[in-house]
């Protein structure tokens, strides 16, 4: 690798032990990738040092130290020794976490785990990390500019960052983002480089794609057929607002490994089809028509059998403020018959509180929670056997993680299920 002077200095230890260990990990990682150099980054989102009680106890038992600094150095930096952890560089944000600090007991968490999370947060805040606690940092103030080099975790945020914003990030992991927070460096590989960002496959969308549910299904289809490849979409793509991009990208990054997509005339690096493809011909052209749309719908609902719904979960990825407005309108002052949990960021919840949406959802019998979701927390209301979801991503993950049946549909289908206790969703 070709190292810059400041990188060599950190590796030599002149920036202190933690930075040295962070650089060592980044060099191991960059070498594995085959990267030749690093890029500088000031925009980093991760989950630095946040530990479950399992991790804390593991290091207490195996290293005699379960403190924040021990977890950060032994686990995040894979350093082999405990170091003190200096302040983070740049704009560093903490993504989603394990629980809502107000409704933790509803999530089945212990007070011990809650207190531990509070301590982790205090450690991070002391080091300059923004406690955003969301999978949607781009909705609550972390909005890079086009071309900016970032080091982001969270596959749904990564695909949004590359595709919708036109900033540059790979799908980083916990360890690489934690190391980047101390060093401001990340391997110059993949999506940091122009030649990697061009579309490889053409997707011709023939089935009308308008609602958020439509966009989730299209994303899920594209993830399955694309794997790691980069699609460019043409055709019947309408109303591609941030909310639809959020659900589309999250789905494509779950069923497959899509980290970037282009939409001709919509996304910043796709003014024309030719620009999106970098002047090359697509490897293949793939059609998304009515039969494909039906197949996706059926795949997402393959696991649903019992139409009696116990639990409706909304907010994957974390709900935006307009989704709160929609849910409050759909509830329309009625009481629900199932559990309803809606997950969001702390910042959006603050606005939902002030706008009266939280109160309307709670008056109906629902609960608004921040920081986490059912899949991350592995938590559903007690006794839940059947779940209704409006997120293709959550439908992909949740049944396997908490052993429930899941139905996928629109937000309207989900609220109808909450109000009646029955699933009546269908492909319209």
């Amino acid at each position, binding site marked *: 690798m070709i190292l810059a002077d400041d990188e060599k200095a950190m590796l030599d230890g002149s920036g202190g032990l933690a930075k040295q260990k962070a650089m060592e990990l980044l060099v191991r990682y960059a070498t594995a990738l085959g990267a030749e150099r690093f890029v500088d980054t000031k925009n980093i989102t991760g989950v630095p040092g946040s530990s479950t009680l399992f991790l804390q106890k593991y290091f207490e038992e195996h290293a005699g130290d379960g403190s924040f600094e021990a977890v950060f150095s032994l686990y995040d930096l*894979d350093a082999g020794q405990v170091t003190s952890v200096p302040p983070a560089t740049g704009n560093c944000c903490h993504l989603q976490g394990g629980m809502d600090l107000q409704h933790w007991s509803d999530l089945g968490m212990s007070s011990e785990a809650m207190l531990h999370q509070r301590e982790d947060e205090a450690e991070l805040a002391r080091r300059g990390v923004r406690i955003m606690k969301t999978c949607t940092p781009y909705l609550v103030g972390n909005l890079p500019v086009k071309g900016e080099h970032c080091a982001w975790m969270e596959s749904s945020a990564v695909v949004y960052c590359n595709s919708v914003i036109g900033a540059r990030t790979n799908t980083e*992991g916990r360890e690489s983002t934690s190391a980047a927070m101390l060093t401001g460096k990340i391997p110059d590989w993949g999506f940091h480089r122009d030649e990697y960002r061009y579309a490889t496959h053409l997707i011709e969308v023939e089935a009308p794609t308008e609602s958020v549910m439509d966009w989730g299904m299209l994303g899920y289809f594209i993830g399955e057929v694309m794997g790691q490849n980069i699609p460019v979409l043409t055709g019947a793509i309408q109303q591609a607002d941030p909310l639809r991009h959020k659900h589309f990208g999250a789905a494509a990054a779950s069923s*497959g490994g899509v980290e970037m997509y282009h939409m001709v005339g919509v996304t910043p690096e796709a003014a024309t089809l030719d620009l999106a493809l970098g002047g090359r011909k697509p490897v293949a052209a793939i059609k998304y028509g009515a039969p494909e749309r039906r197949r996706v719908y059926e795949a997402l609902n393959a696991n649903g059998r019992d139409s009696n719904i116990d639990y409706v979960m909304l907010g994957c990825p974390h709900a935006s403020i307009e989704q709160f407005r929609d849910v409050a309108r759909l509830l329309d002052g009625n009481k629900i018959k199932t559990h309803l949990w809606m997950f969001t960021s702390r910042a959006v919840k603050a606005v939902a509180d002030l706008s009266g949406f939280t109160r309307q959802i709670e008056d109906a019998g629902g609960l608004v929670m921040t920081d986490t979701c059912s899949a991350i927390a592995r938590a559903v209301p007690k006794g839940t056997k059947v779940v209704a979801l409006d997120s293709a991503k959550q439908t992909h993950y949740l049944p396997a993680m908490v052993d429930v049946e899941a139905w996928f549909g629109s937000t309207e289908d989900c609220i109808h299920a909450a109000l009646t206790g029955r699933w009546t969703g269908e492909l319209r």
Partner: protein
Amino acid sequence: MIVLHGRGIVGGCAEGEALVTRETISGWGGIDPMTGTVIETRHELHGQSFKDKVLVFPGAKGSSGWSNAFHMTRLTKSAPLAMIFNQMTTKIALGAVVTRVPAVTELDQDPLSVIETGDWVKVDGDRGVVEVTKR
């Protein structure tokens, strides 16, 4: 014995029985880090554990928690003995590095065609060499 040559991305040597899949693997949400079992509902390895096996697979997909999930298998002693894969991604590069098991990619023959589940496989991550003994 069949010998494949490629690029080692994590050093060290290990040998054992192969577990082969043609489907990419999700880390977070796709495996149980406590047991090394694939839990993704529609995955062809659903219910099978890679613990103490040489995992041969196309690559990683899904959540950015991939490295974290595999890193955890190292702590729970449920990690694969070694990894052999085709598609380089940041998920798998970081995941292999922190799992600290020998890992090889860019092989001169497709390991998914050459290696079958149950074959005895020796992985040299320092030299980037894979030796396959058919069962």
